[in-house]
């Protein structure tokens, strides 16, 4: 009887460990392995080499696009943290029912397909888009403004629209968890509302901020569809470079190495976030 239960338990454990191994670790392992091989006249050579990584560090195009992408994604992350924090704080101060409605409203976009949202943004910002039509109809301008779309700022704006919910939710949840009596105590001791936010809410909600930052940075950094669709001739980000190695170039080893660098950047972001979290809770 016991044997059979043990068998079940072992089977279950194998299943739980096996799935992530099969679908997460094995693929990642495969592309890490690929990144140390190389292509020679179209054929894969399975010999250990650092050539692909050297190519990344030696190539000014790879490096400058990498840094540009990091800057773009950090910028969008910071804007979303500030906006997300404001919205989350505002919502958490409303009566419960309104609070729920507010948060639901901001989460609603998550129920729509990502690609539809990008198209929607383009429909709004385009030369014949809603925004231009409105401005022309109101007589403010006579020719459509072309600067709204197909530029780095269009990518920036679209990132903010797409990923704001991922900033609001974790921050809101961490503010929610702060016991109300801390605020009451602060008020009893003569603290103003600003004091309460600065000395109680902000420090205690930092874990949520860290998670929000992480979500925003990692997701924008890997997103190569948005830049392509709204970035115009400036819509060339690091994700696109990775992608390009799997197209006609068919240089999988180099593509894999660039993907490892993308992954490493995200892991680094997670690491920094972890440290920040530990630092914020230790205080």
């Amino acid at each position, binding site marked *: 009887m016991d044997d059979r239960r043990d068998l079940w338990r072992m089977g279950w454990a194998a299943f739980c460990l096996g799935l992530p191994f099969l679908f997460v670790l094995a693929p990642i392992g495969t592309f890490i392995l690929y990144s140390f091989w190389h292509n020679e006249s179209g054929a894969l050579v399975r010999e250990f080499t650092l050539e692909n990584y050297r190519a990344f560090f030696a190539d000014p195009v790879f490096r400058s696009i990498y840094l540009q992408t990091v800057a773009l994604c950090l910028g969008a992350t910071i804007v979303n943290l500030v906006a997300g924090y404001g919205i989350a704080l505002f919502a958490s101060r409303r009566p419960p029912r309104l609070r729920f409605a507010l948060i639901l409203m901001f989460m609603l976009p998550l129920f729509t397909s990502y690609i539809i949202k990008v198209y929607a943004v383009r429909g709004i910002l385009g*030369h014949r888009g809603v925004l231009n039509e409105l401005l022309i109809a109101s007589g403010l301008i006579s020719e459509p403004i072309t600067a709204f779309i197909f530029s780095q700022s269009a990518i920036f704006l679209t990132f903010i629209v797409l990923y704001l919910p991922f900033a609001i939710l974790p921050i809101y949840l961490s503010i929610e968890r702060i016991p109300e009596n801390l605020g009451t105590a602060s008020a009893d001791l003569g603290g103003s509302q600003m004091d309460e936010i600065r000395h109680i809410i902000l420090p205690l909600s930092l874990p949520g901020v860290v998670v929000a930052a992480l979500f925003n940075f990692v997701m924008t950094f890997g997103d190569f569809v948005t830049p*392509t669709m709204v970035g115009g001739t400036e819509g*060339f980000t690091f994700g696109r470079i990775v992608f390009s190695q799997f197209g006609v170039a*068919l240089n999988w080893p180099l593509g894999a190495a660039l993907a490892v660098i993308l992954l490493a950047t995200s892991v680094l972001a997670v690491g920094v976030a972890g440290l920040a979290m530990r630092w914020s809770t230790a205080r």
Partner: protein
Amino acid sequence: MALTRRGMAGMIAGAMVTATLRPAFAAGGEVRMLIWDGYADPEWVADFEKQTGYTVRATYATSADEQIAKMKASGGKDYDIVAVDSASIKTFVDQKLITPLDMARLSSFDNLLPDFKNFQGPIFGGVRYGVPLAWGSLGLVYDKATFPEPPKSWAVMWDPKYKGRVISQDDANNNINLGAIMLGLDDPFNVKPDEFPLIRTKLAELRGNLLTYFAGFDEGTTLFAENNVVLMFSMGELSAIALQKKGFDVGYAIPDEGALGWMDSLTLSAGATNVDGAYAWMNFLLQAKYGADMTKKFGYGSTTSAEGAPDYTSRLKWAKPPEDLAMRQTVWNEVRSGAN
């Protein structure tokens, strides 16, 4: 280009032939084909089956890579006929996936229009591996209100007058080809190392004049429609047709420098088991009547009928395997990054 052409044709056709169930009678059974959309219309298949007693099983591929993978997996034993484009046919020959045609058995060869009889794409070492079936081009789509006459040169895309109203493909290979054609290189598919910087400069200049790049057939026509675009380095004749259907007054031009052309040939699989059936299909399909029907239904140029077909075949540069795809991608990445 190939992928979208297929997708579009698939939508237009709306119907697909799959395994046709029919009692095996008369001559030798099933002809299995690995082809592109629009190459086995149900009406033609019905005619063929009635006339010959063979049955047809068509498998549709979405890319040449997929075709090669499928053929390599079985050494070609899963198919009797493969429709191969002129840029990849060399790979098929090199990998021994297709086998020379027996011209004595290809009675329909005489039906080809002269231009296509002389087409050298499927001939390697004096041996013919394929018979041309369909073709198309990557031309210039232009707004007729802005250009009452079709533009004579690709240079119009570089004209600062149209800054921000031009769109171009986001495709390494096709852009290098365009640059090479613009520079008037003898062989746009064999760019020399010292010519790449010239092409890069040319394409970088174009970048500054563009509204945006586009990836994919639908994206191109959508961007054209949503913005005040007047010129597009297009993915083919169907781009203009799709825009005209949306109500845009556009034309399709092949400038004097020439344009890229694609040409698909029917080939015999190295693992063909129904060789008789394969020749029967080639001899059946390569008739003016089906060629004209293909142009009408799918917009492809036909090799057997000039009916409804454009007159610019002589100005097309038929796509060949390029000298170095990795190099082309590197140059294209440099252009895209704006590093120039």
